[in-house]
């Protein structure tokens, strides 16, 4: 029983949290790809930038002596998301829109987004230095330890308050997005444009408006993902840069342009990572008592050593590209 609780702590909860972060990031990537047909590499900077915005707001709240029942990071999140959305719109207007007007190829836009990544990274490091910051300097990070002795386990179920809120917030956002895409006129127009941009224009859909809405959603969700990640670990300038590739992998695996695919892909890769580095011996240890001596389980039975954790996403990506390039939900491909 203890072993199962250990498994749940290490794999299920961690995987779920990681999966939520990947999913939120991947939704933005996939929407931008579906509508604007380019790979927005600078998405990680929207996430990191959004997290820093939230951090500044939270620090301001602390400085003004405002105490909040839930972590301040979450309280300021809506405001940070608005600011991040404005940032995203600004980046598009300043860097990508002019290139699109000149008929730039997706390749060129990808490189432009790399330029944006470097500039924002440089600026963040310039102002904040290369060190790490914590959202929890002025308030404690509540950790819930749920006693499981009633079901015969010696380990408690451990989950932190930010993690609980994260899962709830992600769920709410996903449901809101679903309603937006399937019930609202603008949401359907977005789907139409992702489906067939020329026909959308011919139908009289205001494509410039749809593009703006896409950036707003992408920026807001990226801010959410980045802030949650920072709340779970720490805030550093390269916070999201390290996970931009698994996020792309999640979007591609789920099917580019398919928002639900991004969610599925994000959760898939999140769980795959935690499952792959999990030391399965810990789970199957009780079996040692019934197995003969020469068939004992080795001390370390992880599919992949922990250093290779990020490699898991790439392997899944490569396999997906080989077996089903359009992804789980059949998005765009060639």
């Amino acid at each position, binding site marked *: 029983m203890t072993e199962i609780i250990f498994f749940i702590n290490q794999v299920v909860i961690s995987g779920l949290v990681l999966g939520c972060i990947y999913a939120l990031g991947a939704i933005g990537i996939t929407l931008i790809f579906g509508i604007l047909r380019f790979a927005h590499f600078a998405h990680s900077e929207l996430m990191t930038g959004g997290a820093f915005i939230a951090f500044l707001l939270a620090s301001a709240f602390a400085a003004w002596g405002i105490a909040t029942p839930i972590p301040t990071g979450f309280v300021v999140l809506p405001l940070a998301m608005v600011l991040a959305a404005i940032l995203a719109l600004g980046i598009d207007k300043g860097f990508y829109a002019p290139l699109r007007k000149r008929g730039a190829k997706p390749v060129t836009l990808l490189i432009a987004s790399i330029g944006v990544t470097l500039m924002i990274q440089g600026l963040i490091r310039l102002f904040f230095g290369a060190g790490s910051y914590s959202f929890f300097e002025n308030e404690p990070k509540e950790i819930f330890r749920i006693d499981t002795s009633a079901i015969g386990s010696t380990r408690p179920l451990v989950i932190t308050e930010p993690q609980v809120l994260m899962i709830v917030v992600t769920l709410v956002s996903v449901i809101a997005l679903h309603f937006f895409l399937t019930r609202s*006129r603008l949401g*359907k*127009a977005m*789907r*139409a444009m992702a*489906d*067939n941009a*020329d*026909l*959308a*224009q*011919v*139908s*009289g*859909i*205001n*494509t410039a408006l749809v593009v703006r809405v896409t950036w707003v959603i992408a920026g807001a969700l990226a801010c959410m993902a980045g802030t949650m990640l920072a709340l779970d670990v720490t805030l550093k300038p390269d916070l999201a840069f390290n996970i931009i590739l698994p996020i792309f992998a999640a979007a591609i695996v789920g099917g580019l342009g398919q928002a639900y695919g991004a969610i599925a892909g994000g959760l898939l890769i999140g769980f795959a990572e935690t499952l792959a580095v999990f030391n399965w011996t810990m789970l199957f240890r009780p079996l040692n008592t019934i197995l003969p001596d020469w068939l004992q389980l080795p001390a370390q039975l992880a599919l992949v050593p922990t250093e290779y954790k990020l490699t898991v996403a790439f392997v899944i990506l490569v396999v997906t590209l080989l077996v089903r390039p359009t992804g789980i939900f059949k998005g765009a491909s060639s």
Partner: protein
Amino acid sequence: MALIELKHVVGGYGGAPILNGVNMAIEKSDIGVIVGPNGAGKSTTLKAIFGLLRVTGGTIEFGGENVANSLPDRLVPRGLSFVPQEKNVFTSMSVEENLEMGAFTRKDDFSETMQWVYEMFPVLAEKRRQPAGELSGGQRQMVAMGRALMSRPKLLMLDEPSAGLSPRYVIEIFETIQRVNEEGVGILMVEQNARQALAFASIGFVLAGGQNRFTGTGAELIADPEVAKSFLGG
């Protein structure tokens, strides 16, 4: 005053112009058909009207003003609608959602219009929740037309509506177009199936080399031996 009038329209995609002075006038009661050899500028004319390419000379008068080089999102509310030849439905969206997209520019309640479209195309009413990509070629064409009709246009433009359809569907499409016209929508279409289309046309335009060659009623053009020989395959 004509519903739409093109005067000496010159235009192309950049580089050499494809249209070299095209003239046309359509009334609300007309079914106008444009025919001609490949590369004559037939589809280009429709695209020029709809703002999908650059008009460098002449005027396109619709509703009293020159709408040349206007973008579709300004033309659709004015009463202009266009059905492209290919990729003319949102394949991942349901039939009903496709129709809703056609009504995007409308601020009023469009459920009556949707009823009207479903009455015109009963098959669509049956399949309203199915993704448009799963329908047959003829049914897709209906969705495409329905989508264009949802904005209650004054002029409906179609680019080769019978392309790729089986002969039975070709007649059905033309008959449907006639019905739409009877309900008060002007029609301007480009067609390869020249003879059959001209049989329904109240006015026909034969284009070649980006210019007008012959203009007349459908019947006149079919009867004219020169037209028949050069452009209608004898």
